[in-house]
Protein backbone atom coordinates (compact mmCIF):
# COMPACT_ATOMS: atom_id res chain seq x y z
CA UNK A 1 0.00 0.00 0.00
CA UNK A 2 1.32 3.40 -0.96
CA UNK A 3 0.85 6.28 1.45
CA UNK A 4 1.56 9.87 0.50
CA UNK A 5 2.28 12.26 3.37
CA UNK A 6 1.73 15.86 2.33
CA UNK A 7 2.90 18.53 4.71
CA UNK A 8 4.56 21.89 4.23
CA UNK A 9 6.32 21.31 7.52
CA UNK A 10 9.18 18.96 6.73
CA UNK A 11 9.74 18.39 10.44
CA UNK A 12 6.21 17.15 11.02
CA UNK A 13 6.25 15.09 7.85
CA UNK A 14 9.33 13.23 9.00
CA UNK A 15 7.83 12.59 12.43
CA UNK A 16 4.78 11.06 10.77
CA UNK A 17 6.90 9.12 8.33
CA UNK A 18 8.92 7.70 11.16
CA UNK A 19 5.75 6.69 12.99
CA UNK A 20 4.28 4.95 9.98
CA UNK A 21 7.48 3.19 9.01
CA UNK A 22 6.74 0.45 11.51
CA UNK A 23 3.80 -0.65 9.36
CA UNK A 24 4.44 -3.65 7.18
CA UNK A 25 3.81 -3.50 3.42
CA UNK A 26 3.64 0.25 3.23
CA UNK A 27 5.54 2.52 0.87
CA UNK A 28 5.76 6.01 2.27
CA UNK A 29 6.29 9.07 0.13
CA UNK A 30 6.65 12.52 1.63
CA UNK A 31 5.72 15.64 -0.34
CA UNK A 32 6.57 19.00 1.17
CA UNK A 33 6.59 21.14 -1.99
CA UNK A 34 3.37 22.72 -3.17
CA UNK A 35 4.68 23.32 -6.67
CA UNK A 36 4.32 20.34 -8.93
CA UNK A 37 2.26 18.51 -6.33
CA UNK A 38 -0.38 17.27 -8.75
CA UNK A 39 2.23 15.79 -11.07
CA UNK A 40 3.90 14.08 -8.09
CA UNK A 41 0.54 12.75 -6.99
CA UNK A 42 -0.10 11.23 -10.42
CA UNK A 43 3.36 9.65 -10.33
CA UNK A 44 2.95 8.18 -6.86
CA UNK A 45 -0.65 7.05 -7.40
CA UNK A 46 -1.20 6.65 -3.65
CA UNK A 47 -3.82 4.53 -1.91
CA UNK A 48 -3.98 6.93 0.99
CA UNK A 49 -3.05 10.59 1.25
CA UNK A 50 -2.46 12.03 4.68
CA UNK A 51 -2.12 15.76 5.00
CA UNK A 52 -2.27 18.40 7.67
CA UNK A 53 -5.75 19.81 8.10
CA UNK A 54 -4.71 23.39 7.41
CA UNK A 55 -2.67 22.62 4.32
CA UNK A 56 -3.29 25.40 1.76
CA UNK A 57 -3.27 22.89 -1.11
CA UNK A 58 -6.30 20.94 0.05
CA UNK A 59 -8.84 22.57 -2.26
CA UNK A 60 -6.56 22.01 -5.22
CA UNK A 61 -6.01 18.37 -4.27
CA UNK A 62 -9.68 17.66 -3.58
CA UNK A 63 -10.56 19.05 -6.98
CA UNK A 64 -7.85 16.92 -8.53
CA UNK A 65 -9.11 13.80 -6.79
CA UNK A 66 -12.65 14.61 -7.84
CA UNK A 67 -12.02 15.02 -11.53
CA UNK A 68 -8.63 13.54 -12.30
CA UNK A 69 -8.63 11.22 -15.20
CA UNK A 70 -5.05 10.33 -14.37
CA UNK A 71 -6.23 8.35 -11.41
CA UNK A 72 -8.07 5.27 -12.50
CA UNK A 73 -9.58 4.80 -9.05
CA UNK A 74 -11.50 7.54 -7.34
CA UNK A 75 -10.21 8.86 -4.08
CA UNK A 76 -12.68 9.77 -1.39
CA UNK A 77 -12.28 11.71 1.79
CA UNK A 78 -12.24 9.35 4.72
CA UNK A 79 -15.56 10.60 5.98
CA UNK A 80 -17.75 7.55 6.11
CA UNK A 81 -20.51 8.26 8.64
CA UNK A 82 -19.69 4.95 10.32
CA UNK A 83 -16.28 6.32 11.22
CA UNK A 84 -17.43 9.53 12.77
CA UNK A 85 -15.38 9.08 15.92
CA UNK A 86 -12.22 8.46 13.97
CA UNK A 87 -12.87 11.57 11.91
CA UNK A 88 -13.49 13.76 14.92
CA UNK A 89 -10.24 12.47 16.40
CA UNK A 90 -8.38 13.16 13.19
CA UNK A 91 -9.78 16.66 12.74
CA UNK A 92 -8.99 17.30 16.39
CA UNK A 93 -5.42 16.22 15.76
CA UNK A 94 -5.23 18.23 12.56
CA UNK A 95 -5.02 15.37 10.06
CA UNK A 96 -7.07 15.12 6.92
CA UNK A 97 -6.97 11.96 4.90
CA UNK A 98 -8.01 10.89 1.46
CA UNK A 99 -8.48 7.22 0.76
CA UNK A 100 -8.96 5.24 -2.42
CA UNK A 101 -12.50 3.95 -2.55
CA UNK A 102 -12.85 0.32 -1.75
CA UNK A 103 -9.91 0.10 0.61
CA UNK A 104 -11.09 -1.92 3.62
CA UNK A 105 -11.69 0.16 6.74
CA UNK A 106 -9.70 -2.40 8.70
CA UNK A 107 -6.60 -1.47 6.75
CA UNK A 108 -7.18 2.26 7.04
CA UNK A 109 -7.81 2.54 10.75
CA UNK A 110 -4.37 1.54 12.05
CA UNK A 111 -2.75 3.98 9.63
CA UNK A 112 -5.01 6.81 10.61
CA UNK A 113 -4.64 6.01 14.31
CA UNK A 114 -0.88 6.11 13.98
CA UNK A 115 -1.00 9.34 12.03
CA UNK A 116 -3.22 10.92 14.69
CA UNK A 117 -0.84 9.87 17.42
CA UNK A 118 2.11 11.36 15.58
CA UNK A 119 0.25 14.58 14.78
CA UNK A 120 -0.68 14.94 18.43
CA UNK A 121 2.89 14.29 19.49
CA UNK A 122 4.06 16.98 17.10
CA UNK A 123 1.42 19.41 18.32
CA UNK A 124 2.57 18.85 21.91
CA UNK A 125 6.14 19.54 20.91
CA UNK A 126 5.06 22.71 19.22
CA UNK A 127 2.96 24.01 22.06
CA UNK A 128 5.76 23.29 24.54
CA UNK A 129 7.95 25.38 22.33
CA UNK A 130 5.39 28.13 22.08
CA UNK A 131 4.99 28.17 25.81
CA UNK A 132 8.71 28.41 26.25
CA UNK A 133 8.65 31.44 24.00
CA UNK A 134 6.01 33.00 26.17
CA UNK A 135 3.40 33.22 23.41
CA UNK A 136 0.68 31.83 25.60
CA UNK A 137 1.40 34.57 28.10
CA UNK A 138 -0.41 37.07 25.85
CA UNK A 139 -3.85 36.03 26.95
CA UNK A 140 -2.81 36.12 30.62
CA UNK A 141 -1.45 39.59 30.08
CA UNK A 142 -4.76 40.81 28.71
CA UNK A 143 -6.62 39.20 31.62
CA UNK A 144 -4.26 40.82 34.08
CA UNK A 145 -4.72 44.25 32.50
CA UNK A 146 -8.46 43.72 32.57
CA UNK A 147 -8.38 42.92 36.29
CA UNK A 148 -6.31 46.03 36.95
CA UNK A 149 -8.83 48.22 35.14
CA UNK A 150 -11.72 46.51 36.92
CA UNK A 151 -10.15 47.15 40.32
CA UNK A 152 -8.72 50.61 39.77
CA UNK A 153 -11.61 52.07 37.81
CA UNK A 154 -14.40 49.94 39.21
CA UNK A 155 -15.41 48.73 35.75
CA UNK A 156 -17.33 45.55 35.00
CA UNK A 157 -15.41 43.02 32.93
CA UNK A 158 -16.86 43.78 29.46
CA UNK A 159 -16.25 47.51 29.95
CA UNK A 160 -12.66 46.91 31.01
CA UNK A 161 -12.10 44.82 27.93
CA UNK A 162 -13.86 47.36 25.72
CA UNK A 163 -11.60 50.08 27.08
CA UNK A 164 -8.48 48.08 26.26
CA UNK A 165 -9.79 47.37 22.80
CA UNK A 166 -10.77 50.95 22.10
CA UNK A 167 -7.38 52.25 23.22
CA UNK A 168 -5.69 49.67 21.02
CA UNK A 169 -7.83 50.69 18.08
CA UNK A 170 -7.29 54.39 18.59
CA UNK A 171 -3.55 53.89 18.73
CA UNK A 172 -3.49 51.34 15.94
CA UNK A 173 -1.89 48.78 18.24
CA UNK A 174 -2.67 45.24 19.29
CA UNK A 175 -4.62 44.73 22.49
CA UNK A 176 -1.75 42.81 24.02
CA UNK A 177 0.54 45.84 23.60
CA UNK A 178 -1.91 48.04 25.45
CA UNK A 179 -2.37 45.35 28.10
CA UNK A 180 1.39 45.21 28.52
CA UNK A 181 1.50 48.98 29.00
CA UNK A 182 -1.28 48.85 31.59
CA UNK A 183 0.40 46.06 33.53
CA UNK A 184 3.80 47.75 33.39
CA UNK A 185 2.35 51.09 34.50
CA UNK A 186 0.48 49.37 37.31
CA UNK A 187 3.60 47.60 38.50
CA UNK A 188 5.58 50.84 38.45
CA UNK A 189 2.90 52.73 40.35
CA UNK A 190 2.34 50.09 42.99
CA UNK A 191 6.04 49.44 43.32
CA UNK A 192 5.76 45.68 42.93
Amino acid at each position, binding site marked *: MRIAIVDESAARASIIEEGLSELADCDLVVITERRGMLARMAEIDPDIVLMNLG*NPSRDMLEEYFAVSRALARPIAMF*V*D*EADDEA*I*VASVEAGV*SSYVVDGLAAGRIRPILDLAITRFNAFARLQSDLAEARGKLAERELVDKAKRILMQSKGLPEPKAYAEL*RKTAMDQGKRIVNIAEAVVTAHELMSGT
Partner: protein
Amino acid sequence: MNTQLTIGFLPLVDACLPILALEHGFAEDEGISLSLVKDLSWATVLDRLLYGHSDAAHMIAPLAIAATLGRGRPAQPLAAPFVLGLNGNAITLAPKLAQRVRGDEEGLGDPVKVGAALREVALERAAAGKPLTFGVVHRYSSHNYMLRYWLASCGIHADKDVDISTVAPPFCAEALELGEVDGICVGEPWNSVAVEKGVGEIVLSTSQIWRRGVEKVLALREPVLEEKREAVLRLIRALCRAAAHFVDPINWEHNAAILARPEYLDGSPELIRRAIADQILIARGGAMIHYPDFMFQYREAANFPWVSQAEWLYSQMVRWDGQTFDRASADKAARVFRPDIYRAALLGTNEPLPGASSKVEGSIVTPTVVGTQQGNMVLESNAFFDGKVFDPQRIEEYLAQLP
Protein backbone atom coordinates in the same frame (compact mmCIF):
# COMPACT_ATOMS: atom_id res chain seq x y z
CA MET B 1 -22.68 36.29 30.43
CA ASN B 2 -21.25 36.64 26.95
CA THR B 3 -21.83 33.93 24.38
CA GLN B 4 -18.66 32.62 22.79
CA LEU B 5 -18.81 32.15 19.05
CA THR B 6 -15.99 31.06 16.78
CA ILE B 7 -16.05 31.97 13.10
CA GLY B 8 -13.73 30.52 10.46
CA PHE B 9 -12.57 32.61 7.52
CA LEU B 10 -10.21 32.83 4.57
CA PRO B 11 -7.98 35.90 4.10
CA LEU B 12 -10.20 37.85 1.67
CA VAL B 13 -11.59 41.38 1.78
CA ASP B 14 -15.10 39.98 2.04
CA ALA B 15 -14.26 38.36 5.37
CA CYS B 16 -14.58 41.96 6.55
CA LEU B 17 -17.89 41.83 8.40
CA PRO B 18 -17.03 39.28 11.11
CA ILE B 19 -13.59 40.89 11.50
CA LEU B 20 -15.03 44.39 11.91
CA ALA B 21 -17.84 43.13 14.17
CA LEU B 22 -15.09 41.91 16.47
CA GLU B 23 -12.67 44.82 16.11
CA HIS B 24 -15.21 47.61 16.52
CA GLY B 25 -16.94 45.91 19.43
CA PHE B 26 -20.28 45.45 17.61
CA ALA B 27 -20.33 41.78 18.61
CA GLU B 28 -19.34 42.60 22.16
CA ASP B 29 -22.21 45.13 22.32
CA GLU B 30 -24.57 42.29 21.44
CA GLY B 31 -23.09 40.11 24.16
CA ILE B 32 -21.03 37.96 21.81
CA SER B 33 -17.38 37.13 22.38
CA LEU B 34 -16.12 36.42 18.89
CA SER B 35 -13.01 34.52 18.05
CA LEU B 36 -11.90 34.15 14.48
CA VAL B 37 -9.96 31.28 12.96
CA LYS B 38 -8.04 31.89 9.76
CA ASP B 39 -7.45 29.08 7.31
CA LEU B 40 -6.02 28.86 3.81
CA SER B 41 -8.38 26.43 2.13
CA TRP B 42 -12.15 26.11 2.04
CA ALA B 43 -11.84 22.39 2.79
CA THR B 44 -10.33 23.29 6.14
CA VAL B 45 -12.93 25.98 6.89
CA LEU B 46 -15.65 23.41 6.15
CA ASP B 47 -14.00 20.66 8.22
CA ARG B 48 -13.72 22.96 11.21
CA LEU B 49 -17.39 23.87 10.85
CA LEU B 50 -18.60 20.28 10.45
CA TYR B 51 -16.53 18.95 13.35
CA GLY B 52 -17.26 21.76 15.78
CA HIS B 53 -13.99 23.72 15.83
CA SER B 54 -16.06 26.67 14.69
CA ASP B 55 -19.71 27.67 15.17
CA ALA B 56 -20.00 29.55 11.90
CA ALA B 57 -17.92 30.26 8.83
CA HIS B 58 -17.28 32.81 6.11
CA MET B 59 -18.05 30.55 3.18
CA ILE B 60 -18.45 30.55 -0.57
CA ALA B 61 -22.21 30.20 -0.97
CA PRO B 62 -22.24 27.19 -3.35
CA LEU B 63 -20.08 25.19 -0.92
CA ALA B 64 -22.75 25.54 1.77
CA ILE B 65 -25.26 24.08 -0.69
CA ALA B 66 -22.87 21.35 -1.87
CA ALA B 67 -22.23 20.28 1.74
CA THR B 68 -25.98 20.14 2.38
CA LEU B 69 -26.58 18.04 -0.73
CA GLY B 70 -23.66 15.74 0.03
CA ARG B 71 -21.59 16.59 -3.02
CA GLY B 72 -18.10 15.22 -2.55
CA ARG B 73 -18.71 14.10 1.03
CA PRO B 74 -21.58 12.80 3.20
CA ALA B 75 -24.42 15.31 3.43
CA GLN B 76 -24.53 17.65 6.42
CA PRO B 77 -27.29 20.27 6.47
CA LEU B 78 -25.91 23.80 6.60
CA ALA B 79 -27.84 27.02 7.06
CA ALA B 80 -26.99 30.48 5.74
CA PRO B 81 -28.99 33.15 7.57
CA PHE B 82 -26.85 36.09 6.39
CA VAL B 83 -25.13 36.99 3.13
CA LEU B 84 -21.67 38.44 3.79
CA GLY B 85 -21.56 40.20 0.45
CA LEU B 86 -22.30 40.26 -3.25
CA ASN B 87 -19.67 40.16 -6.01
CA GLY B 88 -16.24 41.65 -5.30
CA ASN B 89 -14.45 39.23 -7.62
CA ALA B 90 -12.69 39.87 -10.90
CA ILE B 91 -11.33 38.05 -13.89
CA THR B 92 -7.65 38.72 -14.37
CA LEU B 93 -5.75 37.50 -17.42
CA ALA B 94 -2.04 37.24 -18.22
CA PRO B 95 -1.05 40.68 -19.63
CA LYS B 96 -0.60 39.65 -23.27
CA LEU B 97 -3.89 37.79 -23.36
CA ALA B 98 -5.65 40.65 -21.57
CA GLN B 99 -4.33 43.18 -24.07
CA ARG B 100 -5.42 41.05 -26.98
CA VAL B 101 -8.99 40.43 -25.82
CA ARG B 102 -9.61 43.85 -24.34
CA GLY B 103 -9.15 45.63 -27.66
CA ASP B 104 -9.33 49.38 -27.48
CA GLU B 105 -11.65 49.45 -24.49
CA GLU B 106 -10.74 51.89 -21.76
CA GLY B 107 -11.07 50.52 -18.26
CA LEU B 108 -12.90 47.27 -17.70
CA GLY B 109 -13.94 45.46 -20.86
CA ASP B 110 -17.41 44.88 -22.21
CA PRO B 111 -18.30 41.30 -21.27
CA VAL B 112 -19.75 40.51 -24.71
CA LYS B 113 -16.84 41.96 -26.70
CA VAL B 114 -14.15 40.55 -24.44
CA GLY B 115 -15.92 37.19 -24.54
CA ALA B 116 -16.02 37.19 -28.34
CA ALA B 117 -12.31 38.03 -28.55
CA LEU B 118 -11.48 35.43 -25.92
CA ARG B 119 -13.43 32.83 -27.88
CA GLU B 120 -11.10 33.25 -30.85
CA VAL B 121 -8.06 32.71 -28.67
CA ALA B 122 -9.67 29.82 -26.81
CA LEU B 123 -10.54 27.97 -30.00
CA GLU B 124 -7.08 28.59 -31.47
CA ARG B 125 -5.42 27.30 -28.36
CA ALA B 126 -7.74 24.30 -28.08
CA ALA B 127 -7.04 23.41 -31.72
CA ALA B 128 -3.31 23.64 -31.03
CA GLY B 129 -3.75 21.19 -28.15
CA LYS B 130 -2.82 23.83 -25.56
CA PRO B 131 -6.19 24.97 -24.20
CA LEU B 132 -6.48 28.15 -22.17
CA THR B 133 -6.39 27.42 -18.46
CA PHE B 134 -8.28 29.30 -15.76
CA GLY B 135 -7.84 29.11 -12.03
CA VAL B 136 -10.85 29.44 -9.77
CA VAL B 137 -10.82 29.25 -6.01
CA HIS B 138 -13.03 26.21 -5.63
CA ARG B 139 -15.22 23.87 -7.61
CA TYR B 140 -18.20 25.01 -5.54
CA SER B 141 -17.62 28.74 -5.71
CA SER B 142 -19.49 31.62 -7.31
CA HIS B 143 -16.18 32.36 -9.07
CA ASN B 144 -16.42 29.05 -10.89
CA TYR B 145 -20.09 29.56 -11.74
CA MET B 146 -19.73 33.19 -12.84
CA LEU B 147 -16.71 32.41 -15.01
CA ARG B 148 -18.46 29.44 -16.58
CA TYR B 149 -21.68 31.41 -17.07
CA TRP B 150 -19.79 34.12 -18.93
CA LEU B 151 -17.68 31.72 -21.01
CA ALA B 152 -20.68 29.62 -22.01
CA SER B 153 -22.76 32.65 -22.98
CA CYS B 154 -19.88 33.77 -25.19
CA GLY B 155 -19.76 30.43 -26.98
CA ILE B 156 -16.82 28.96 -25.06
CA HIS B 157 -17.57 25.55 -23.61
CA ALA B 158 -16.17 25.61 -20.10
CA ASP B 159 -15.37 21.89 -20.06
CA LYS B 160 -14.34 21.25 -23.66
CA ASP B 161 -12.70 24.43 -24.95
CA VAL B 162 -10.76 25.47 -21.85
CA ASP B 163 -9.40 23.94 -18.65
CA ILE B 164 -10.61 25.19 -15.30
CA SER B 165 -8.71 24.13 -12.21
CA THR B 166 -8.57 25.08 -8.56
CA VAL B 167 -6.01 27.55 -7.23
CA ALA B 168 -6.13 28.88 -3.67
CA PRO B 169 -6.54 32.69 -3.61
CA PRO B 170 -3.11 33.50 -2.10
CA PHE B 171 -1.42 31.53 -4.90
CA CYS B 172 -3.35 33.01 -7.84
CA ALA B 173 -0.77 35.66 -8.72
CA GLU B 174 2.00 33.09 -8.55
CA ALA B 175 0.09 30.70 -10.83
CA LEU B 176 -0.24 33.51 -13.42
CA GLU B 177 3.41 34.39 -13.05
CA LEU B 178 4.54 30.81 -13.59
CA GLY B 179 2.24 30.42 -16.58
CA GLU B 180 0.33 27.61 -14.85
CA VAL B 181 -2.87 29.47 -15.71
CA ASP B 182 -3.78 32.06 -18.34
CA GLY B 183 -6.44 33.65 -16.19
CA ILE B 184 -7.91 33.65 -12.70
CA CYS B 185 -11.25 34.45 -11.18
CA VAL B 186 -10.69 35.40 -7.56
CA GLY B 187 -11.71 37.88 -4.87
CA GLU B 188 -9.73 40.88 -3.71
CA PRO B 189 -7.03 41.70 -2.90
CA TRP B 190 -5.67 38.83 -5.00
CA ASN B 191 -6.43 40.29 -8.44
CA SER B 192 -4.72 43.52 -7.44
CA VAL B 193 -1.75 41.59 -6.12
CA ALA B 194 -1.35 40.06 -9.60
CA VAL B 195 -1.67 43.52 -11.19
CA GLU B 196 0.91 45.02 -8.82
CA LYS B 197 3.34 42.25 -9.70
CA GLY B 198 2.75 42.94 -13.38
CA VAL B 199 1.68 39.33 -13.99
CA GLY B 200 -1.97 40.01 -14.72
CA GLU B 201 -4.45 42.62 -15.94
CA ILE B 202 -8.05 42.82 -14.81
CA VAL B 203 -10.50 42.54 -17.71
CA LEU B 204 -13.85 42.12 -15.97
CA SER B 205 -15.47 42.41 -12.60
CA THR B 206 -17.92 39.60 -11.82
CA SER B 207 -20.50 42.31 -11.10
CA GLN B 208 -20.50 42.87 -14.87
CA ILE B 209 -21.58 39.27 -15.37
CA TRP B 210 -24.32 39.34 -12.77
CA ARG B 211 -24.91 42.78 -11.32
CA ARG B 212 -26.03 41.40 -7.95
CA GLY B 213 -24.37 38.03 -7.73
CA VAL B 214 -24.37 36.30 -4.35
CA GLU B 215 -20.87 35.67 -3.03
CA LYS B 216 -20.05 34.68 0.56
CA VAL B 217 -22.49 33.64 3.26
CA LEU B 218 -22.32 33.13 6.97
CA ALA B 219 -22.79 29.36 7.22
CA LEU B 220 -23.62 27.28 10.28
CA ARG B 221 -24.56 23.67 10.81
CA GLU B 222 -28.33 23.57 11.01
CA PRO B 223 -28.37 21.93 14.49
CA VAL B 224 -25.96 24.60 15.75
CA LEU B 225 -28.24 27.33 14.40
CA GLU B 226 -31.20 25.81 16.26
CA GLU B 227 -29.22 25.36 19.43
CA LYS B 228 -27.64 28.83 19.46
CA ARG B 229 -30.45 30.66 17.72
CA GLU B 230 -30.61 33.59 20.14
CA ALA B 231 -26.88 34.22 19.88
CA VAL B 232 -27.02 33.96 16.09
CA LEU B 233 -29.72 36.63 15.98
CA ARG B 234 -27.47 38.91 17.99
CA LEU B 235 -24.52 38.07 15.76
CA ILE B 236 -26.58 39.04 12.69
CA ARG B 237 -27.34 42.43 14.22
CA ALA B 238 -23.64 42.94 14.91
CA LEU B 239 -22.73 41.93 11.34
CA CYS B 240 -25.29 44.37 9.99
CA ARG B 241 -23.72 47.21 11.95
CA ALA B 242 -20.32 46.12 10.63
CA ALA B 243 -21.72 46.26 7.08
CA ALA B 244 -22.99 49.83 7.55
CA HIS B 245 -19.58 50.78 8.96
CA PHE B 246 -17.72 49.04 6.14
CA VAL B 247 -19.43 50.98 3.34
CA ASP B 248 -19.11 54.41 4.97
CA PRO B 249 -16.25 56.27 3.22
CA ILE B 250 -15.21 57.85 6.53
CA ASN B 251 -14.10 54.42 7.74
CA TRP B 252 -12.39 53.05 4.63
CA GLU B 253 -8.83 53.94 5.58
CA HIS B 254 -9.12 52.66 9.12
CA ASN B 255 -10.94 49.46 8.17
CA ALA B 256 -8.40 48.72 5.44
CA ALA B 257 -5.64 49.04 8.03
CA ILE B 258 -7.44 46.60 10.33
CA LEU B 259 -8.09 44.03 7.59
CA ALA B 260 -4.46 44.26 6.43
CA ARG B 261 -3.08 43.06 9.78
CA PRO B 262 -1.09 39.82 9.87
CA GLU B 263 -3.79 37.95 11.81
CA TYR B 264 -6.38 38.80 9.14
CA LEU B 265 -5.48 39.28 5.48
CA ASP B 266 -1.79 39.92 6.06
CA GLY B 267 -1.72 42.17 3.01
CA SER B 268 -1.38 45.69 1.72
CA PRO B 269 -3.74 48.25 3.32
CA GLU B 270 -3.67 50.23 0.07
CA LEU B 271 -4.89 47.32 -2.09
CA ILE B 272 -7.58 46.50 0.46
CA ARG B 273 -8.73 50.13 0.65
CA ARG B 274 -9.10 50.18 -3.12
CA ALA B 275 -11.36 47.13 -3.08
CA ILE B 276 -13.51 48.66 -0.35
CA ALA B 277 -13.75 51.90 -2.38
CA ASP B 278 -14.68 50.03 -5.61
CA GLN B 279 -11.45 51.28 -7.18
CA ILE B 280 -9.66 49.01 -9.58
CA LEU B 281 -6.21 49.38 -11.05
CA ILE B 282 -6.56 47.41 -14.24
CA ALA B 283 -2.93 47.16 -15.24
CA ARG B 284 0.34 48.07 -13.59
CA GLY B 285 1.10 51.69 -14.40
CA GLY B 286 -2.39 52.17 -15.82
CA ALA B 287 -5.21 54.37 -14.68
CA MET B 288 -7.29 53.70 -11.60
CA ILE B 289 -10.94 53.32 -12.42
CA HIS B 290 -13.96 53.51 -10.19
CA TYR B 291 -16.49 50.76 -10.78
CA PRO B 292 -19.52 51.35 -8.52
CA ASP B 293 -20.78 48.32 -6.61
CA PHE B 294 -17.72 46.23 -7.43
CA MET B 295 -18.15 45.00 -3.87
CA PHE B 296 -21.67 45.14 -2.48
CA GLN B 297 -21.88 44.68 1.26
CA TYR B 298 -24.83 46.57 2.63
CA ARG B 299 -27.21 48.65 0.50
CA GLU B 300 -30.55 47.26 -0.72
CA ALA B 301 -30.51 44.69 2.10
CA ALA B 302 -27.52 43.08 0.38
CA ASN B 303 -27.16 40.74 3.35
CA PHE B 304 -30.68 39.32 2.99
CA PRO B 305 -30.48 35.65 2.00
CA TRP B 306 -32.83 35.54 -0.98
CA VAL B 307 -33.99 31.98 -1.52
CA SER B 308 -33.82 32.58 -5.27
CA GLN B 309 -30.05 33.16 -4.98
CA ALA B 310 -29.62 29.68 -3.50
CA GLU B 311 -31.81 28.27 -6.26
CA TRP B 312 -29.73 29.96 -8.96
CA LEU B 313 -26.60 28.43 -7.46
CA TYR B 314 -28.31 25.04 -7.42
CA SER B 315 -29.20 25.47 -11.11
CA GLN B 316 -25.52 26.07 -11.90
CA MET B 317 -24.51 23.06 -9.83
CA VAL B 318 -26.84 20.90 -11.90
CA ARG B 319 -25.52 22.49 -15.07
CA TRP B 320 -21.82 21.99 -14.41
CA ASP B 321 -21.84 18.80 -12.38
CA GLY B 322 -23.62 17.15 -15.30
CA GLN B 323 -26.59 16.11 -13.20
CA THR B 324 -30.25 16.26 -13.94
CA PHE B 325 -32.57 18.67 -12.17
CA ASP B 326 -34.20 17.13 -9.15
CA ARG B 327 -37.05 18.83 -7.27
CA ALA B 328 -36.14 17.38 -3.87
CA SER B 329 -32.52 18.56 -4.15
CA ALA B 330 -33.63 21.98 -5.39
CA ASP B 331 -35.85 22.32 -2.32
CA LYS B 332 -33.01 21.23 -0.03
CA ALA B 333 -30.69 23.75 -1.66
CA ALA B 334 -33.31 26.49 -1.33
CA ARG B 335 -33.72 25.79 2.39
CA VAL B 336 -30.01 26.45 3.04
CA PHE B 337 -30.76 30.18 2.77
CA ARG B 338 -32.68 31.25 5.85
CA PRO B 339 -34.52 34.57 5.42
CA ASP B 340 -36.68 33.63 8.43
CA ILE B 341 -33.66 33.92 10.72
CA TYR B 342 -32.52 37.17 9.08
CA ARG B 343 -35.99 38.65 9.58
CA ALA B 344 -36.20 37.50 13.20
CA ALA B 345 -32.84 39.15 13.91
CA LEU B 346 -33.65 42.51 12.34
CA LEU B 347 -37.37 42.94 12.93
CA GLY B 348 -37.87 46.19 14.83
CA THR B 349 -34.51 47.66 13.80
CA ASN B 350 -33.91 50.34 11.16
CA GLU B 351 -32.80 47.76 8.60
CA PRO B 352 -35.27 47.32 5.74
CA LEU B 353 -36.80 43.88 5.32
CA PRO B 354 -38.24 42.93 1.92
CA GLY B 355 -41.77 41.60 1.78
CA ALA B 356 -40.83 38.64 -0.40
CA SER B 357 -38.08 36.09 0.27
CA SER B 358 -37.52 35.15 -3.32
CA LYS B 359 -37.28 37.16 -6.53
CA VAL B 360 -36.89 36.69 -10.25
CA GLU B 361 -33.12 37.17 -10.56
CA GLY B 362 -32.00 39.37 -13.41
CA SER B 363 -35.45 40.88 -13.87
CA ILE B 364 -34.73 44.35 -12.52
CA VAL B 365 -33.17 46.79 -14.98
CA THR B 366 -34.15 50.16 -13.52
CA PRO B 367 -34.45 51.17 -9.85
CA THR B 368 -37.64 49.61 -8.56
CA VAL B 369 -39.50 50.19 -5.34
CA VAL B 370 -40.37 46.86 -3.73
CA GLY B 371 -42.85 45.97 -1.02
CA THR B 372 -41.37 45.55 2.42
CA GLN B 373 -42.08 44.02 5.80
CA GLN B 374 -40.41 47.10 7.33
CA GLY B 375 -38.64 50.21 6.00
CA ASN B 376 -38.30 51.31 2.39
CA MET B 377 -36.44 49.48 -0.31
CA VAL B 378 -35.45 50.38 -3.84
CA LEU B 379 -33.68 47.62 -5.75
CA GLU B 380 -31.36 48.64 -8.58
CA SER B 381 -30.47 46.55 -11.60
CA ASN B 382 -29.70 42.91 -10.86
CA ALA B 383 -29.26 41.98 -14.51
CA PHE B 384 -27.18 39.20 -16.02
CA PHE B 385 -24.94 40.51 -18.82
CA ASP B 386 -26.75 38.42 -21.43
CA GLY B 387 -30.16 39.68 -20.34
CA LYS B 388 -31.39 36.25 -19.27
CA VAL B 389 -33.80 36.00 -16.37
CA PHE B 390 -33.89 33.32 -13.68
CA ASP B 391 -37.36 32.49 -12.42
CA PRO B 392 -36.99 30.11 -9.45
CA GLN B 393 -40.42 28.67 -10.26
CA ARG B 394 -39.08 27.49 -13.61
CA ILE B 395 -35.58 26.18 -13.03
CA GLU B 396 -35.91 23.36 -15.55
CA GLU B 397 -37.02 25.69 -18.33
CA TYR B 398 -34.18 28.05 -17.42
CA LEU B 399 -31.64 25.23 -17.63
CA ALA B 400 -33.03 24.03 -20.93
CA GLN B 401 -32.46 27.39 -22.65
CA LEU B 402 -28.91 27.92 -21.36
CA PRO B 403 -26.14 27.15 -23.84
